[in-house]
């Protein structure tokens, strides 16, 4: 049995008296996209900093590909790529120079910057200073930089925040390709649709603790209710909206009765979003 890409046990960290991460535990498998969701101040960033070796845990352990992030920090960092929420590229350099710099720091042999730029859709603009790039281009270059070392672990912090659909699609495709090649992806995002679409499993963090962890489907199954929204025409000619809750014992009969007794105009299925579930569990939204 192979060891998980990330294995976290009872990890804790506090800033003074403020407990930012409170004894969290989870595993991430190789090739898995692990969505890490929570509002600002919930402990997401601190967790990422602990896992990427920027912070030293005050309690608990974190192993990346079997390497302890404290005692084998630099060795573990050799295997990871990180894309930050804020762009932190060398803007006076061009894209090739940015990528080559990091390839040399990772000591990547036979690195082909042009091939990587082709993958992120930046070929043709490789000689321009990064300062002239749009936000989407910079974010794609950040993603390319994270992939320079052919990492087995990718930490992506809001990788598509504020991007145009084309850039978003490019980044989603890169994530999918990376996971197919066995790379584990630790994804922190506010975008619930993105998390739902990309993540194999998601963890909700709230006040430093993981309050839910499962596949999006299982979470919806467990915490959310699926329903049918049915628009019917009444005898007086007016319309009315009816709701039939799914996954209950009387659902089939209710749907049958509705279609037999009412003049049904439209039917829409509806399921709980991850945000609905988060609010349901914590009593507060993800944007807060």
């Amino acid at each position, binding site marked *: 049995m192979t060891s998980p890409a990330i294995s976290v046990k009872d990890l804790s960290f506090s800033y003074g008296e403020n407990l930012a991460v409170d004894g969290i535990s989870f595993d991430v498998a190789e090739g898995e996209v692990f969505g890490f969701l929570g509002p600002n101040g919930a402990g997401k960033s601190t967790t990422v*900093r602990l896992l990427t070796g920027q*912070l030293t845990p005050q309690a608990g352990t974190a192993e990346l590909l079997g390497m302890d992030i404290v005692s084998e920090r630099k060795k573990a960092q050799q295997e990871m790529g*990180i894309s930050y929420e804020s762009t*932190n*590229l060398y803007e006076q*350099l061009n894209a090739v120079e940015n990528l080559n710099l990091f390839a040399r*720091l990772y000591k990547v042999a036979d690195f082909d910057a042009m091939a990587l730029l082709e993958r992120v859709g930046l070929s043709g603009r490789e000689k321009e200073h990064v300062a002239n790039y749009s936000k989407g281009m910079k974010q794609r270059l950040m993603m390319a930089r994270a992939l320079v070392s052919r990492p087995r672990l990718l930490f992506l912090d809001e990788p598509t925040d504020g991007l145009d659909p084309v850039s978003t699609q490019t980044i989603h495709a890169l994530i999918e390709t990376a996971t197919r090649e066995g790379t584990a992806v630790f994804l922190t995002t506010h975008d619930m649709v993105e998390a739902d679409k990309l993540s194999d499993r998601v963890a909700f963090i709230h006040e430093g603790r993981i309050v839910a962890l499962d596949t999006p489907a299982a979470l919806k199954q467990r915490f959310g209710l699926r329903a049918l929204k049915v628009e019917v025409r009444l005898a007086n000619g007016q319309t009315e909206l009816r709701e039939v809750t799914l996954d209950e014992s009387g659902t089939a009969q209710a749907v049958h009765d509705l279609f037999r007794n009412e003049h049904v105009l439209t039917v829409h299925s509806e399921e709980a979003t991850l945000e609905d579930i988060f609010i349901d569990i914590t009593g507060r939204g993800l944007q807060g």
Partner: protein
Amino acid sequence: MDVQRIWVLMGKEIRLGLTSFMSIYVLVMPVLLSLLVALIFGDLFAQTPRLGLFDAGGNETLVQALADHPSIQTRSYASQAALEAAVARGSVEWGMSLEADFANVLREGGAVARTNTYRWGEAGARSLMLIEAAVARAVVEATGLVFDELPVNVEVGQLGKASTATWSQRLLPLLLIMAIVLSGLFIPSSSLVDEKQKGTLVALTTTPASLLDVYLAKTAVGFILSGLMALIILALNNAFAGNPGLLLLVIALGGLMSSILGVILGSLSRDMETFMGIIKVLGLVLYAPGILEIFPQVPQWIGRVFPTYYIMNPLLEISRNAARFADVALDLAILIGFIVILAFVLAREIQRQQQQLALEG
């Protein structure tokens, strides 16, 4: 510490430095000032010593011998007063007023041959030595006397205020400090502040490169640039004399102190505004020994209070007075002491900054 990564990071520092206004400013400014000083005070385009002559008559052979001398320029004046005025304003560095038949009287002996000589107060030692040698040779040529038997006593009168150094010599210490400190301190510190502000430092330190690698690369680049700049400034100011090995040692130690101090300041500064605030205060302290050298009337011991004195003074002693190691050993020991203290502070600062970066992300 990884030497290969430090090398890569040094390449990045130099590449970014080529496009940084701050780097261009600190590299170009001392050179421009050197050229300006040399231009204004005459050392750049008037390297040949200038001798002024007034001949009361009968000294054509001697005057011609001086005019033919390849190492000096001679200018003739119609009167002793005109000669004195030319020396006083620095048109010539040395003036000789030859009495009638000076050379003949000298050749024949018996009677006393007299000449009044005048020296410009800011004439450099090099010019004076060349002129003296040229005059002695011309006298030998014109009179046929054997040099070591010349029956001449020369009494030198000086016009204007006495000064032991030219303006360019007085400004050289400040230029040297600017060269070493500006490039050694400003380039690593401003680059570090910039990297902190733009978040690239976090990106670097989450690769296998460590913060120590990053800091060492910045220190090394500051060290190299400050050394190069010091050599350029010494060359531009014709101050390359003395023991070159010793000179290089002082330049290296000075560059090391400046670059370590620069990295510490850059690391402590939260942003460029804070950094510039620190520099405004610290700049005076760093430049003080150089500024004091411009004003010889100020007691020079005050300069010893400032750390950069221990870079500047040995450099000047070696380049001006051909000082040996023993002459500057105390200054070098103090300089090394400063470097050791700064290295210790830097080691502590790296630990603090590592935590700070993690907290700020």
